[in-house]
C-alpha cells in the first residue's frame, strides 16, 4: 500500500548541475564570511582588555557578530531561508519569544540577588 501520510519534501529539492554551481558559490561565500567574522572576533578579543574604556562597545559587537553568524548558519546551511514561510515562523517566533523573556527575567533576577549579596558581604 502506498503511504500518503509522508511528505517527501526532498523530491522537490532535486536540482541540476547548473543550479548546483550557483548553490556552491553561495556556500563558499558564506564560508569566507564566517571565517572573516571569527578572525575579527578573535583579534578583538585578544587585543582589547575587558577593563578598557571601549569594552562595552566591543561586547555588543561580539553579540551582534554572533547573531550574524548564527543567522547565516541557520538560514543558509540549514536551509531555513528556503523553507516554507509558515515553517520558518513556527520555529523562530516561539523560540525568540521564550528566549528573550528568559534572558530578561534571568538578568533582572540576577541583579536583584547581587544587590542582596553585596549588602550582606
Amino acid at each position, binding site marked *: 500500500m502506498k503511504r500518503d501520510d509522508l511528505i*517527501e519534501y526532498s*523530491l522537490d529539492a532535486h536540482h541540476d548541475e547548473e543550479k548546483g554551481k550557483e548553490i556552491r558559490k553561495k556556500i563558499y561565500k558564506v564560508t569566507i564570511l564566517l571565517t572573516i567574522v571569527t578572525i575579527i572576533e578573535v583579534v578583538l578579543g585578544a587585543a582589547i582588555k575587558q577593563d578598557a574604556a571601549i569594552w562595552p562597545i566591543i561586547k555588543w559587537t561580539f553579540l551582534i557578530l554572533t547573531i550574524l553568524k548564527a543567522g547565516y548558519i541557520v538560514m543558509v546551511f540549514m536551509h531555513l531561508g528556503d523553507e516554507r514561510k509558515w515553517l520558518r515562523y513556527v520555529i523562530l517566533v516561539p523560540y525568540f519569544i521564550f528566549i528573550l523573556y528568559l534572558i530578561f527575567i534571568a538578568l533582572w533576577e540576577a541583579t536583584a540577588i*547581587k544587590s542582596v549579596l553585596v549588602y550582606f558581604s
Partner: protein
Amino acid sequence: MMWFFLVSDALTFGGLLISYGFTRHDCIVAWPIGEETFNSLPFLGHGYPLLYVALMTFILIISSVTMVLAVEAGHRMDRKGVTKWMIATIIGGFFFVGSQAWEWYHFIHGSEFGKIELADGSVAIVKGHFGEIKNFTVTEAGHEHKKGDIVKEDLMHTFQHAAAAGDITNGIITLHDGSKASITKEKDHDLTLIVKKSGSVNKASKEKRVIKGAKAEKLYYDALYSGEANRVIYGANLKQNEYGPQQYAQFFFFITGFHGFHVFSGVVINIIICLGVVAGTYHKRGHYEMVEKTGLYWHFVDLVWVFVFTFFYLL
C-alpha cells in the same frame, strides 16, 4: 520532525547558557576572562590568547561547510560527492572532539603557577614564564632518600603537590618520604600577578590589579613557600579551580561537555549515514533526505558552538 527536536535542544542549550549568564551576573567576585584563561597552544606553551579555540571554531565551521556540500551533492544524486564530503565532515568532527579533549586536559591540569592567595588575603592569578625546576637536593634524609641524593624525576608534579599541601617552607621542600630537600630552579620571567579578589593591601580594582616585576615575584614566592596548605590551587575540578569562582568550572565542564557529547553523537550518526550512502541505500530510495536530516543536526551543533564560543571565550 528534525526541526522540532532541534528547537527543543536549542531551548536546552539556551537555558544552560542563560543560567551561566545569570550566575555570572549575580557573582560578586571577579569572573574569569577568556583571554587570560585560554592562552595555550599545543607544543608552543602559553601566551597565545584565544588562538586555540579560534582554531577549534574554524574546524567546526569548515566541517559544517563540507556537510552542506554533501547535502548539495545529494540533491544532484551524486553519490560519490556525498561520500567524499561526508567523510570530510566526519574527519572534521573527530578533529573537533580531539581538540576539545586537549582543551579539557589543559583546563583540568592548569597552569604552572596556579592561583595564589597572597599574604594579605588577596587572591591573584599568575602569568609569565615558569623557570624550569632542575632537581631537588636532599639535605635531610627520609625513609627513601639519603642525604646528598639528587632527585630528578617527576619534579613538577612533586613541586605542585607539595606547594598545595603546604610542604614547602622557605625554599625547602618536604618530600613524600619525609626527607627534606632544597630546590634548584631556573629564574621565572615576566612574572605578573593579576589580583582577582581584594585583600587588605592588594586591591582588585581596575587600576591596581596588576602587579609586576620583583615585587610580584616576592609576593608570589612568599605565599608559595609559606608552608601553609591550600595557599595555591592548580587546575580545575568540581570543588575548586584556579580560574575563578567554583561555578565557572562547573558550567564550563557541563556546557562544553554537553556540547562535546552532541558533537560526538553527531560524528557517530554521520558515520552511520555515510555507511548508508556507500551502500547505496539512499540512492535506491531516490533521494538523500537522510543526509539532509543529519546535516541539520550537524549544523545545529556548529550553531551551538558559535554561542558557546562567544559566551565562554569572548565575553
